[in-house]
């Protein structure tokens, strides 16, 4: 207890020293506690909010999704071992946000492909469902950070990546295209940045997955920027005919243009009245 030990010349420490030390101790410990609670408090608060959101999501899930995906979200396997309804464990919040946020889920009817339709839930309900599915397996992909969705990436690079990785199905102008047996790659014009990103990381339906190791978040940002650039810059070459390419152009030339020429020829040869 050097604090109370007399010093070499016998004089005691300042009488207020102990008071100062106690005050300091109180301030440090009290401040530390306050700081610690300040640090912990919002976290515990958000956990509570999360728990509430997950609980709300679970309720929504049981009411709207469980009839196909099962009460435990594990999907359904038929007698032959074929997965008839997919499991949602591990698909992540990104997948839910995409499927429900574009109206594809809840599905209206089974068919070659689940169609985009009017969104059935509010943003808050979608977030709740996403939180619930994420809570089933926290390793699933999450809703992307807004910084990848600003559309301010390198459009040239995005265009090149899009043409190599996406254009074979979605068309070089993002107009979409046909696949096998009634399935199709949807057009990308007007699709929200967030949903484009989520489709790439989750691979909905027949779309392959483009993980961050395949296309980095920066690559994805560039691709989104390119698609948004296309939306703002319509074709300068004339009427696009929905950008669907040679089939539509050929149909137009053969039926409309050639038909017009045939009519003109008939008029040329007809006798005047």
């Amino acid at each position, binding site marked *: 207890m050097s604090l109370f030990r007399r010093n070499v010349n016998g004089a005691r420490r300042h009488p207020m020293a102990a008071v100062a030390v106690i005050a300091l101790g109180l301030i440090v410990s009290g401040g530390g506690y306050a700081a610690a609670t300040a640090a912990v408090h919002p976290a515990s608060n958000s956990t509570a909010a999360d728990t509430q959101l997950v609980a709300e999501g679970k309720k929504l899930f049981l009411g709207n999704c469980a009839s196909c995906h099962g009460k435990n979200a594990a999907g359904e396997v038929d007698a032959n071992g074929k997965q008839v309804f997919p499991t949602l464990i591990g698909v992540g919040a990104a997948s839910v946000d995409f499927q429900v946020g574009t109206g594809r889920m809840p599905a209206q009817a089974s068919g070659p492909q689940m169609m985009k339709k009017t969104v059935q839930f509010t943003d808050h309900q979608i977030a709740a469902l996403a939180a619930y599915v994420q809570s089933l397996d926290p390793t699933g992909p999450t809703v992307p950070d807004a910084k990848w969705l600003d559309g301010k990436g390198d459009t040239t690079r995005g265009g090149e990546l899009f043409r*190599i990785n996406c254009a*074979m199905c979605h068309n070089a102008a993002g107009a979409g*295209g046909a696949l096998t047996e009634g399935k199709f*790659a949807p057009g990308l014009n007007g699709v929200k940045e967030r949903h484009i990103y989520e489709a790439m990381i989750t*691979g909905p339906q027949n779309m392959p*997955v483009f993980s961050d190791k395949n296309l980095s978040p920066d690559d994805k940002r560039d691709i989104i920027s390119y698609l948004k650039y296309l939306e703002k810059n319509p074709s300068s070459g004339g009427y696009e005919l929905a950008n669907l390419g040679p089939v539509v152009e050929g149909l137009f030339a053969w039926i409309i243009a050639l038909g017009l020429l045939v009519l003109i020829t008939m008029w040329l040869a007809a006798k*005047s009245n």
Partner: protein
Amino acid sequence: MSDKPKAIKGAASTSDEFDYSAGLAVIPADKIADPGLEPHHVRMTDKSKKHEKAAARQVALLFFVSIIGSAAALVIYFLFPLSTTEFGPVRENTFWLGLAIALGTLALGIGAVHWAKTLMPAAEQAEARHQTRGSEETRARAVEIIKLADQESGFSRRKLIRRSLYTALAFFPLPGILVFGDLGPNPGSTLRHTKWAKGVRLVHDPYGAPIKASDVTEGSVFHVVPENIDPEDHDYLEQKAKAAVLLVGVNPEDLTIAPDRKGWDYDGIVAYSKICTHVGCPVALFEQDTHHLLCPCHQSTFDLNKGCEVIFGPASRPLPQLPITVDAEGYLIAQSDFHEPVGPSFWDRSIN
């Protein structure tokens, strides 16, 4: 016709007025009779002055519209100036300019045709074709001229000139053989080989980053080229076009592997040539759920889980598979080149 030749024996006469040589044509006995000319059609403009005047006004109006179109084109050219930096103005300029010029041309043409149809004489006229065969006199005269030319030029008489000319003509095309020979060389073995070889890394198209096996998650698709192609090479595009590969990660349990292809995949990661075996379009439309690979040109469909066998469409062979493995650092590498020529089928499947 005074110099009417005699019809060749056996040939049918096709007209009451003229005798034609039918030549080698087959004339069927039950030939459809010539219906002759249609009865004359009297137009309103022939019958009434009022209609005639109206038609004249219509023609003049069409020509006037043509003037407006052409004049508008002149104005439009300056109204929508072209820009050297933007495409938008090009669209405006070409669209309106095209529309105005079309109006000018079409109205001019329609006016001319309308004039001819309504106001010019409409009496039907028959004009017979002349005979193909010349008259006897013409033929005799032609022979005479040829004989005279031969006599005067001395072509038959001067053997030295004639034979040297023949020889010169025979030599003339010979240099062409060498010149056209330079259009080659023959493709040799280039159709049978790509840049893939043992140990060549699979890299991302187009930025060339190598790919770790652990990065290829189930359901992901990578567009891949060999690392040893160099954009500086003169044949870079040819090499890239031949060697393009689609790398897909699938659940190893779902793969049906032929006995001679054991070990060609790496833990459910398979690599197939992207060049369709039908006519060489890039096959890259991969459906994750059905594991179908679709060619966009003619809808050939390949089942990726079953060695890319053809399940639909005009392709006759599976897509060639690239045997892959990993190197010491975990990056994907090729075990060898493809075991068969990539791309459209041709007569010889050997790779030597």
